């Protein structure tokens, strides 16, 4: 590469990094704004907005709902998606390739269209309980993440490892537990985190299934922003952001250290 091209590449990379990170920094900074308008640069710092999060109209039920739905749908998807990925990876399934494509295809489909399709579908069969419809709908949001991650994780998994463990004196279930589970733990964790975040953050599907009393947190937040944006929202966003960062960091540590240390026990 020529010198000029290299410089352009670096300028773009640094610019891109700043551009991506700035909104996150701005939110964090605004949450400490001493005044109700987000004045930047800050003229002081205040944490009072954090205290107000809990007093936002309908905040707690929405947080609880979003956590429930995200956790449950992630757990169900992890189980179903991993089983499916195993079957696909073992190659004993006719039409495995097509099925794998079908499993991840919702990722490429507009969420809003899925939302109205589900609204229509659930109505057609008389399935209208908001909590349950949200959970079922979020399975379609989370399953593709799990399937994609686990299929590629399992594609890299060498099934002779299980045979090796068996010849070394491990029973079949024992081999799965001692060899396959640790080898796939990183994929499993990544799949779980991304599927949880995808559900927790989802707006376009949830909006069509929620009702006045059953609103997920993203729906609430958009409503707050449209009605009366103030630093309380920035504080809430910062907390969610911080939670996400901690989640990512801790899991990286757990998986990373686990691999480095090289022990399964």
């Amino acid at each position: 590469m020529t010198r000029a091209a290299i410089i352009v590449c670096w300028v773009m990379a640094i610019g891109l990094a700043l551009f991506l990170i700035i909104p996150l920094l701005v939110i964090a900074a605004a949450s400490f704004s001493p005044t109700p308008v987000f004045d930047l640069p800050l003229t002081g710092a205040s944490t009072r907005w954090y205290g107000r999060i809990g007093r936002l109209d309908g905040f707690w039920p929405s947080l609880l709902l979003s956590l429930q739905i995200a956790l449950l749908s992630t757990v169900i998807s992890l189980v179903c998606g991993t089983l499916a990925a195993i079957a696909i990876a073992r190659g004993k399934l006719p039409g495995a390739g097509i099925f794998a494509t079908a499993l991840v295809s919702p990722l490429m489909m507009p969420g809003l269209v899925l939302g109205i399709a589900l609204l229509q579908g659930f109505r057609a069969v008389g399935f209208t309980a908001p909590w349950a419809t949200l959970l079922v709908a979020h399975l379609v949001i989370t399953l593709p993440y799990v399937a994609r991650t686990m299929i590629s994780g399992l594609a890299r998994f060498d099934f002779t490892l299980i045979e090796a463990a068996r010849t070394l004196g491990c029973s079949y279930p024992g081999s799965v537990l001692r060899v396959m589970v640790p080898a796939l733990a990183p994929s499993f964790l990544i799949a779980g985190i991304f599927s949880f975040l995808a559900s927790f953050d989802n707006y376009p599907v949830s909006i069509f299934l929620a009702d006045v009393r059953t609103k997920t947190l993203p729906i609430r937040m958009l409503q707050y922003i449209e009605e009366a944006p103030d630093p309380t929202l920035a504080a809430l966003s910062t907390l969610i952001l911080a939670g996400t960062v901690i989640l990512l960091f801790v899991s990286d540590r757990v998986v990373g250290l686990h691999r480095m240390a090289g022990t399964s026990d």
Partner: protein
Amino acid sequence: MSESSPHLVVRGVSKRYGPTTVLDHIDLTIRRGELVTLLGPSGCGKTTLLRAIAGLAQPDTGKVELAGRDITHVPPHKRNVGVVFQSYALFPHLTVAGNVAFGLKVRGMARREIDVAVDRALSLVKLGHLASRRISALSGGQQQRVALARAIAVEPDVLLFDEALSALDRKLREEMQVELRRLLQEVKATAIFVTHDQDEALTMSDRVAVMNKGRIEQLAEPRELYLRPASLFALNFVGLSTRISGTVLSADNGKVDVETKVGRLSALGNFQAGSPVIVAARPEQLRIGGEDETNSASGRVRSVVFQGSRTLVEVDAGAGESLLAELSGRDGAIPGVHDEIRLSWPVAETFAFPMEAQA
């Protein structure tokens, strides 16, 4: 148990996958401390036989006995076999020592004993200094040694190697062949070694089993296998040979006279007159010149390939037949290409095989 008593017995083992018969009534008896190689072309069932012995594939019929115990229906983890896989199958989440300790931990051995056994196994393969390395930070040759250490650490009744050296480059492979042989003798292991590399088979083993299409064609010591191949397949698969087709003219007590396109030849074999046969001899038996009481044929030299201590000469004997001679420089002049020469070889080293057996 005595040295020569049967240690591993495979009796009438067959295995089918759908319509294909992968193992066809395999019988194989291995003595304690013996190293037997399974040699054969790709797809002949070597891996399947090994897996049947390890318990990773259930035979449809037949029995497997190991160290006096019928293990036909014993699951792999209770068989006490050690397997070195072609891809090594080392556990990526464990260290070198963790891999070697795996089988011992599973057996519930005490921590201190495990440490001792791991140290011993690793020093046997000269990897003691890498005990705490991660697997991904090892070279191919080192991984191979870890796989070996892991397999011998549990002191298995039989060690099974499935093309264990084929992923190594040639030089390393040849070094490992020698070292592995030494090591297996040191730990007095009984071992089965799968390969499709004939040199590897001849170098390493006490006996070689030549497999073809799910059957064992010949089980013999390397020298006997080379000098007295039991079938055309065994002849072709191990070493080079001159092969000429013809028809039996007369048979006499284990010896036949065969009419071929290059003249009348005599060979060892039992056939009825009129049978179509292939007459064969090893190239090093062929000499320049024509002597009495021998087979001989003449032709024009097609190619001369210098190979260090010996020279391979291919002679076009006409009528689509060719002769292959391996000459050492001592025997006199090496002919040039296009020279007309006559080659002769002893009848006692000439074999006849049935024609239809040619694969």
